[in-house]
């Protein structure tokens, strides 16, 4: 399960994914599934550490603007690499809700998708399978220009 950020594997990812049965620890960084957020709200208010929220891909992001505003990390899902809903959710988060903390994608990430995901606003990637830093770097930089403007855009655009 590598977690990739800035082109490299994160060795000690501080984030702990909470599940149903788990109690909210008193400290440390936790990611809580959206469905558990209200149930565990009280425990979370005393929590000493950063809080991330994992949002499924069939949720209307705009309905959770207030909650999202308090989060230190949002995690979106790619249950299958062909399921592109998270790309639009990411853009809504970045461009409309102004979310500017870490945006993580978890699931079936293929290296060839990473450039698109990044352009939609993701900055960390959590997926199964091998990670090859050299292929990753090459794949992300092979296309240097774009016709569309994007979040924290690093591509070349016409006339610029």
């Amino acid at each position, binding site marked *: 399960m590598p977690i990739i950020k800035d082109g490299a594997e994160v060795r000690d990812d501080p984030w702990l994914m909470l599940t149903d049965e788990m109690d909210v620890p008193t400290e440390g960084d936790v990611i809580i599934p959206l469905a558990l957020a209200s149930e565990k709200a009280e425990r979370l208010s005393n929590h000493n550490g950063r809080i991330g929220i994992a949002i499924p891909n069939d949720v209307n992001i705009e309905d959770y603007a207030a909650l999202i505003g308090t989060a230190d990390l949002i995690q979106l899902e790619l249950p299958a690499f062909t399921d592109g809903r998270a790309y639009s959710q990411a853009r809504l988060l970045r461009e409309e809700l102004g979310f500017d903390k870490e945006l993580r994608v978890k699931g079936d990430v293929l290296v060839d998708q990473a450039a698109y995901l990044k352009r939609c606003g993701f900055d960390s990637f959590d997926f199964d399978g091998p990670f090859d830093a050299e292929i990753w770097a090459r794949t992300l930089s092979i296309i240097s220009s774009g*016709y569309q403007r994007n979040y924290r855009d690093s591509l070349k655009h016409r006339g610029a």
Partner: protein
Amino acid sequence: MYIYDDFDETFVRERAAQFRDQVERRLSGALTEEQFRPLRLMNGVYLQLHAYMLRVAIPYGTLSSGQMRQLAMIARKYDKGYGHFTTRQNIQYNWPKLKDLPDILDDLADVGMHAIQTSGNCIRNVTSDQWAGVAADEVTDPRPYAELMRQWSSLHPEFSYLPRKFKIAITGAEQDRAAIAFHDIGIRVKRNETGEIGFDVYVGGGLGRTPMVAKKIGEFISVNDLLPYLIAILRAYNLEGRRDNKYKARIKILVHEKGAEAFKARVEEIFAGLDKDKLRAPQGELERIAKFFDNPAYETLEIEPASLREARADNKAFDAWVRRNVAAHKTDGYAIANISLKPVEGIPGDASAEQMELVAQMADDYSFGEIRVSHEQNLVLAHVKKSDLYTIWQALEANGLGTPNIGAITDMITCPGLDYCALATARSIPIAQKISHKFSSSERQSEIGDLKIKISGCINACGHHHAGHIGILGLDKKGEEYYQITLGGSGDENAAVGEILGPGFSADDVADAIDTLVERYIQLRSSEGETFLDVVKRVGLEPFKEALYADH
């Protein structure tokens, strides 16, 4: 036509390099076929029955003579010496090898071409009226907007993993030759009383298993808002379109299930929230693009040169070709010459490398070096002098390109069917060949007049049979091919889905059945001017059913 600048060129070169890298990773085993599949699809590479197929984009069907020559070169070098022009105004090669594909893409990039998004669940090549910019009935030239959309949709980071493929068509003419009502998004360019341009936007049209005519949801959207408005539609679809069932994943199903009004409201809600200034075309970009579509240097010519009149009077075959294949141009003394790729018993849409080169030469000599591909799988020389028509026709005729049947019964749209396609339930090309044989006489064809037959080899409807005045759908019943006939479909501004007549016919009987329908039509029509479609609309299906099934 639009010419690439350094920016476009770099982009396409990098895309070709990216695909080369992906193919290498596939060949080395770093990518599984399952992982490679969406990557190759997004670059127009299919795995067909016998081989890989490469589909090359011809944006809104416009190409230069130099590009056409390169397509011919590719046909010769990597394929069996021919290519197939498609209903999406693209060209397909049916026999390339996987290892050659990166080289083909480099060859394409040399002439400003590519295979980006000619397949896959992304925004496909934008299509338009093959007579754009020259048609006498045009309100505004749609090509600058088509090019803008081509650029905007290329490797779109948000819309490359949609629930299903996504097709956009645009027209600027009264008569809809781009079949916008059968696209995921159809756009009609309009001009209001003050001369301002705006777009009527239709959404949710499509053929396939569940044919639907698109519904209008956007009324006179401004030029400035075009891209943000498209983004709102695509975003609504990407978030809410069905992904549980591939046959229900097109936007037409979402629009249908949600209701056009509710879908429109959702699009407007998303649109209202967009930071539009960031999403519009960059300042000056549309003007930059539009310059490429300025009129070529037309001369001042006689409206009807005597030489043309004389040649027509002297040569019946030429006269027949002019009547069927030549259309009105907006400029005096010029004409639109349509080149049929539907010779009798040929394979609809196929052209040999030599034919492509001849057309390129004709374009250089007589039509400002430009060629169009129509969604009806024919080619167009869009700016020829009427006084050159006879010379052009002679050259075409000598090379098997002079068939005088544009819009006639043998100008059929036919999908590849079981001869090539892995999804097919029946053959379609041999059926087209039989029909074309039956109606080969050009006198008979001109007596029949305008009649569009469209043939698909399975319910995916790539041959647009739902939109055919006569539609033919090839099915399979216990290992036997049989063909269902529909009547009354139409892809124009009065778009309609054809209705099934009754039980299907065997491969041997289809052509006779069509003959019976045509005979019935001739008896029923009130004058020669009343077309097949007019008669079906007037009398309904009954008289045709009677003619076909009375003795059964």
